């Protein structure tokens, strides 16, 4: 019964697919409503079993509260994105019934990803997720940018797949099995860790870094984010990152827990380069979507920092950071989705200038979200950064904390440049006023969420620490 949400979603997706191909009367908006309904119901299936622990399908998948929590987060995000699809005026190329269906397929892949307990099932679910995302990125195929982004993403993704398989084959050669459990048992039996295993782990880490776009494996991110349709960029910057982080956390904490020091060194390099690239690369960007790509890289660096000690507190900090990051990102992308001039979607930074004069409320919401991204004290982003920095200092990694603070100061520069653009620049050509009320309310919701978190940080801490407990029950 435990894999019920995935089965539910996949079966209803198949039914939706039949509906889409045989019924002429149903358009893409109805499909989106149906998928919203499916996502909503799947959440109840997860909530029902959130504290269960069970290995299912011959140990191919595992259901524990960590995976349930990640699935819930993924489902909520996906639900919001499908809702964005309904309320926002989309480009014509997205108006096809396949779009929500493909999102649902990606959802199944990502939900299986976070509960995979075997390299084989992990590989298959990563493939299901990424194949769907390649299609979504190149969805507006008449647009040359979108096709280019699709091809780039596809090539990088295939490379990542190859590297993943090579690493898995090395580990299989040594251990004789690909299930996480036997790898864990094998490692606890060894007196000295064979380098072979670490080499295999490095390959897998590289592959997952390509998925979460941690520098130096970030090169595809800005191009793909800019080229893809904005709604797909919203999807790319939130859900796959959550899923890949879920995989990374389970992989490093469960089967490879014995070599924490070895992968900790790799993660230190990854996080330092990500933070540097993310903060320095964004300085000269003029496109909002490109800027958000670098901002994602910067945030990924911060999140990786929490994983370095490999302790329960670290995972809790990452979970909290992911929640806040997702709300900030969804809010800012909702605004970018609504940035139109004369009915045409624009996304350059210059277009923001003088927003305060035409739409003061929206400008304030945007400013709150941007301050939160920069980590200015009363907002949610600050709490996330504080918890992670606190953890890093507790583990005596002072140089890492110094680099993190310095890079977030640099990153604050470009967020605050956007705010200066919104409030003080003279408007040259005003944006269309956001007409749909749902977008306004949602934007307001994201902004208020970022403000009120400071009053209830304990709630998030308790939630995340109760969830991460299940990961460490195994060892």
């Amino acid at each position, binding site marked *: 019964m435990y894999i019920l949400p995935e089965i539910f979603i*996949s079966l209803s997706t198949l039914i939706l*697919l039949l509906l889409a191909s045989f019924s002429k009367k149903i358009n893409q908006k109805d499909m989106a409503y149906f998928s919203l309904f499916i996502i909503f119901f799947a959440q109840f299936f997860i909530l029902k079993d959130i504290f269960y622990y069970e290995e299912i*399908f*011959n140990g*191919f*998948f595992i259901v524990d509260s960590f995976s349930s929590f990640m699935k819930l987060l993924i489902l909520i995000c996906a639900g919001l994105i499908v809702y964005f699809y309904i309320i926002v005026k989309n480009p*014509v190329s997205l108006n*096809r019934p*396949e779009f929500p*269906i*493909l999102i649902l*397929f990606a959802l*199944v892949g990502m939900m*299986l990803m976070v509960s995979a307990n075997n390299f*084989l*099932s992990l590989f*298959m*679910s990563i*493939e*299901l997720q990424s*194949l*769907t995302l*390649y*299609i979504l990125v*190149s*969805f507006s*195929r008449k647009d040359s940018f979108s096709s280019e982004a699709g091809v780039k993403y596809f090539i990088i993704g295939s490379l990542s797949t190859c590297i993943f398989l090579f690493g898995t084959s090395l580990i299989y*050669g*040594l*251990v*004789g*099995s690909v*299930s996480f459990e*036997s790898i864990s048992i*094998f490692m606890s039996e060894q007196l000295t860790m*064979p*380098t*072979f295993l670490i*080499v295999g782990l490095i390959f897998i880490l590289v592959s997952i870094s390509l998925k979460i776009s941690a520098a130096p494996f970030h090169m595809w991110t800005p191009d793909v984010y800019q080229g893809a349709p904005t709604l797909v960029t919203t999807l790319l910057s939130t859900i796959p990152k959550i899923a890949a982080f879920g995989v990374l956390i389970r992989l490093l904490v469960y089967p490879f827990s014995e070599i924490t020091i070895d992968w900790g060194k790799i993660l230190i390099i990854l996080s330092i380069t990500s933070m540097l690239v993310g903060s320095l690369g964004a300085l000269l960007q003029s496109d909002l979507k490109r800027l958000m790509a670098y901002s994602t890289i910067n945030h990924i660096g911060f999140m990786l920092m929490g994983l370095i000690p490999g302790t329960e507190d670290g995972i809790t900090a990452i979970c909290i950071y992911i929640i806040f990051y997702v709300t900030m990102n969804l809010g800012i992308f909702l605004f970018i989705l609504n940035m139109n001039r004369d009915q045409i979607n624009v996304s350059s930074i210059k277009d923001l200038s003088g927003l305060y004069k035409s739409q003061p409320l929206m400008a304030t919401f945007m400013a709150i979200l941007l301050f939160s991204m920069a980590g200015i004290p009363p907002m949610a982003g600050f709490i996330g950064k504080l918890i992670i920095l606190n953890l890093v200092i507790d583990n005596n990694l002072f140089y890492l904390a110094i680099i993190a603070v310095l890079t977030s100061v640099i990153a604050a520069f470009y967020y605050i440049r956007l705010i200066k653009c919104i409030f003080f620049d003279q408007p040259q050509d005003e944006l269309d006023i956001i007409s749909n009320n749902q977008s306004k309310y949602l934007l307001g919701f994201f902004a208020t969420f970022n403000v009120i978190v400071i009053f209830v940080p304990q709630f998030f801490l308790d939630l995340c620490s109760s969830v991460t407990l299940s990961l460490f029950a195994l060892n």
Partner: protein
Amino acid sequence: MNIIAFYIISSITVLSCLSVVFSSNPVHSVLFLIFTFFNVSILFLLSNAEFLAMTLIIVYVGAVAVLFLFVVMMLNINEVLIKEGFLKYFPFGFILITIFLLELFFVFKDITLKNTSSSKMNISELLNKGNTNTESIGMFLYTDFFIVFQISGFLLLVAMIGAIVLAKNENLNIKSQKIIYQKSLDKKRVIKLK
């Protein structure tokens, strides 16, 4: 006998792989690729995996490589353009490859690979019981591995949807009558008097 055959075939495989990368004519590359697949299937035969060997020939040589050949012939690839950046990237790439190979060499030097599977999923056990190769693979695929099998089915479905989405030309601007729409028209909404 077996081990000598293995060494001969595997060295031929490596050589033909290298010629896939280094041959200047793309058609030659594809032909060498087919040769590589044949050699690998012989390697499978040497390790008593007839089913895998035959599948490799049918799927890769019969379908994939032929598709490759078609694409290569249709694209009319300019050889000069491909070779253009070679000298520029060669030194850096060579250094990286050398470092990587040396690292792998040191790692592989003192290692003993396990030749028996430690998990309960052991195919040689089934073979010893007198099942044929295909039978035992089927037994695994549809029992222990059935969830992976299902997911791969989903993967194929997604690939199919993707091909249709990306290739089907949906002409939205076509001027045709929609009967339902025309019948449901209201006279008062269409005709305007100013």
